[in-house]
């Protein structure tokens, strides 16, 4: 062992929401943690996210008169994932979500007062935070414990396993209490110098997904490439943790369900967030002026549908009443802000709007008229849309000018797939056996979302699963 090697109780790789949640949970239990971040800045994709967390049964919901429960959350998560997700993981999320909500508040995370409904939710369940502030709050709480050593600019390169009995005796001696083959740390790299960081209770990978690795995404989801989609996420999300675990035989799941999220403006590079006016009643039309999908489904499925349209871009069409129903407390529903940013195209009539977005006016007018008739009839004959979003909200007509169009494409914000873990966040190998000493949480984990995605479940699982991973590792 080198003199520069470091020792701690738990090694955590990646300083986003999941990393800080893991570190804080472990530190609060009285353990020392070294938290690695390969970039100079912490936060990762968490800090860039929409700041939505899906919780059920909270005080904020109660204050808004929303009746929600863990069982309804479980049902919604399973449904939106088309039952392709891991029931045990969904159960782990549900069973630990309310406690995590309270824990986050105690750690200093501030939730906005308003609860909204979004993708995959039967009731208003989106709890809003400023995502960068939320990560900073957890980071500050972790720092206050005095037990978390944050090392930025430090990249984990490989996992270190305890040597087998036949290995070099020197290595065995330095890890005398380690069980054979157990993950005991990482080889890291800082300022050009490699060294080991060893954790007596193993390693938790919270290294995020691989949204910045377009080649890897294209390998699993060939329909997504740099010409058809936008890729937005933490600069460090290149799949490092995934590869490190795969080297030890870790299995992955949900890889075929990588999808872009609908609602990203295709040619604006200042506002990275999606807008889901469809969840307030807008319809989505393609460049031919025609609808192509049930707009109430998960925005990941909407993203997939959009990508298959001409130019991989479509328009959300709405009227003044829908514009006014936007929610400026929830980024993905904040129509007004997009309008102020000059991203929403406006016209007094549908014909004029069609001219501005270069779709056939007669077709657009007919599309809207047909949709309005279907709303009156109570049945969307073409695509079967029954609600504004998932199973929530009554459909509204598009009839009161001015009229608006929001150009939209699919943005891959996260990969929503990754390592197989059990409900205790132990990483599983291709035979379904846990890899001793290796745990994972956050975006690097697959299995929670399944075929689609509920708003708030990605940031939610970062915090919830991070805490579970810490507890499991420290109990081991």
């Amino acid at each position: 062992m080198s003199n520069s090697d470091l020792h701690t109780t738990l090694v955590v790789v990646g300083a986003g929401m999941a990393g800080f949640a893991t570190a804080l949970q472990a530190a609060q239990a009285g353990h020392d943690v070294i938290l690695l971040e390969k970039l100079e800045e912490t936060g990762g994709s968490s800090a860039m996210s929409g700041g939505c967390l899906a919780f059920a049964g909270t005080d904020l919901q109660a204050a808004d008169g929303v009746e929600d429960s863990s069982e309804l959350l479980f049902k919604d998560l399973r449904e939106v994932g088309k039952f392709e997700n891991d029931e045990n993981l969904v159960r782990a999320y549900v069973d630990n979500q309310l406690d995590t909500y309270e824990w986050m508040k105690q750690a200093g995370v501030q939730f906005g007062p308003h609860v909204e409904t979004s993708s995959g939710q039967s009731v208003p369940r989106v709890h809003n935070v400023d995502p960068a502030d939320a990560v900073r709050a957890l980071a500050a709480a972790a720092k206050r414990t005095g037990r978390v050593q944050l090392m930025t600019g430090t990249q984990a390169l490989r996992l270190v396993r305890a040597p087998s009995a036949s290995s070099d005796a020197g290595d065995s001696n330095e890890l005398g209490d380690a069980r054979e083959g157990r993950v005991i740390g990482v080889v890291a790299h800082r300022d050009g110098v490699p060294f080991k960081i060893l954790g007596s209770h193993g390693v938790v990978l919270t290294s995020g997904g691989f949204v910045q690795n377009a080649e890897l995404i294209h390998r699993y989801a060939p329909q997504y490439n740099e010409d058809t989609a936008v890729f937005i996420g933490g600069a460090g999300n290149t799949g490092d943790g995934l590869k490190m675990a795969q080297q030890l035989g870790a299995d992955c799941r949900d890889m075929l369900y990588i999808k872009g999220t609908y609602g990203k403006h295709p040619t604006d590079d200042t506002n990275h967030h999606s807008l889901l006016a469809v969840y307030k009643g807008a319809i989505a039309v393609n460049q031919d002026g025609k609808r192509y999908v049930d707009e109430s489904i998960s925005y990941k499925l909407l993203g997939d549908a959009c990508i298959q349209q001409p130019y991989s871009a479509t328009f959300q069409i709405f009227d003044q009443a829908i514009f006014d129903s936007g929610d400026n407390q929830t980024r993905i529903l904040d129509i007004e802000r997009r309008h102020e940013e000059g991203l929403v195209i406006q016209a007094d009539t549908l014909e004029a709007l069609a001219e501005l977005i270069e779709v056939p006016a007669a077709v657009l007018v007919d599309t809207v008229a047909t949709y309005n008739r279907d709303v009156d009839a109570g049945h969307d004959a073409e695509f079967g849309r029954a609600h504004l979003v998932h199973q929530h909200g009554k459909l509204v007509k598009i009839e009161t000018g001015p009229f608006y169009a929001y150009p939209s494409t699919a943005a891959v914000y996260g990969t929503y797939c990754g390592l197989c873990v059990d409900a205790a966040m132990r990483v599983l190998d291709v035979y379904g056996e846990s890899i001793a000493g290796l745990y994972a949480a956050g975006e690097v984990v697959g299995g929670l979302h399944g075929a689609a995605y509920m708003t708030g479940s990605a940031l939610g699982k970062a915090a919830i699963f991070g805490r579970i991973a810490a507890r499991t590792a420290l109990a081991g």
Partner: protein
Amino acid sequence: MHIAVLLAGVADPRKPLPRPASGDWRELPCSDAISYKLSPFDEAALEIALKLRDQGAAARVTVVVTDGALDNALLRSVAALKPDRLLGLSPPAGQRGSAAWLARHAGDLLRADGAWPDLVLIGREHGDLDDGMTPAYLAESWRLPFVNLALQVQAGISGGWALLRSGARQDESLQVPAPAMASISNDKSNRLRHPLMKNVAMAKQFKFEQVTPDAGLAATPATPATSATPATPATSATPATFASPAPSAAPARPVTLVQAAPCSSSARGAQACHMFTGSVEEQAAALVAYLRAPTIDH
């Protein structure tokens, strides 16, 4: 009505400048690896032209790109907004930032069909190497009525243009006859629209053949220098007219800034800002005095 817009790309601030292969940063202006984008001022000028066309006040919009005309991505970003005509006029490295060079070459280009456009728009600073002198210099050279720092333009009822700008104490509207020239500043009202994805996709198909007009430092007869040719036949969705490449254009000869204008001999930048007042003649005389006596007291 014909409106022309003079644009100059600026180095994209989000991307690091590429170190020249020789390691000599003075060769940077020769580099074709620089990524360009439009400045907010140029974006505003272009938006005003497109808005006037939308309103029926302009039958066609011609865009001439100078700095950055060799950057296909920049040209495609402009083409995606569907000007009626898109031309590139790439100054030799040593002439970048030279209003005199632009006056000689861009003027003939704009008068290609025998008359000045009814309105020539230009950002208040023309590219990275202009400190705001170029618009006024061009207008003076071309003897066009000039309004500086306009924010909006409206077609006059009886011809000409009404240009709106924010004065020191109040907004003002200035009337000028056509043809005229205006430099444009940016604000919320003239923020450049986003192109439709359809037009971005179509612009990606365009091929832009690049020819440097003038490899030497001496002035040469004006020649449309850069041609942009769509890969597919021009349609209403594509820039409709493109200049033909200059068949006899010579390949570019590397020119450094030192050859063009040694900084040690340049007075500009060595002194604090100096404001001239009075008539044009008085200001010109003051300027001459200032340049001849760089130690002049301010």
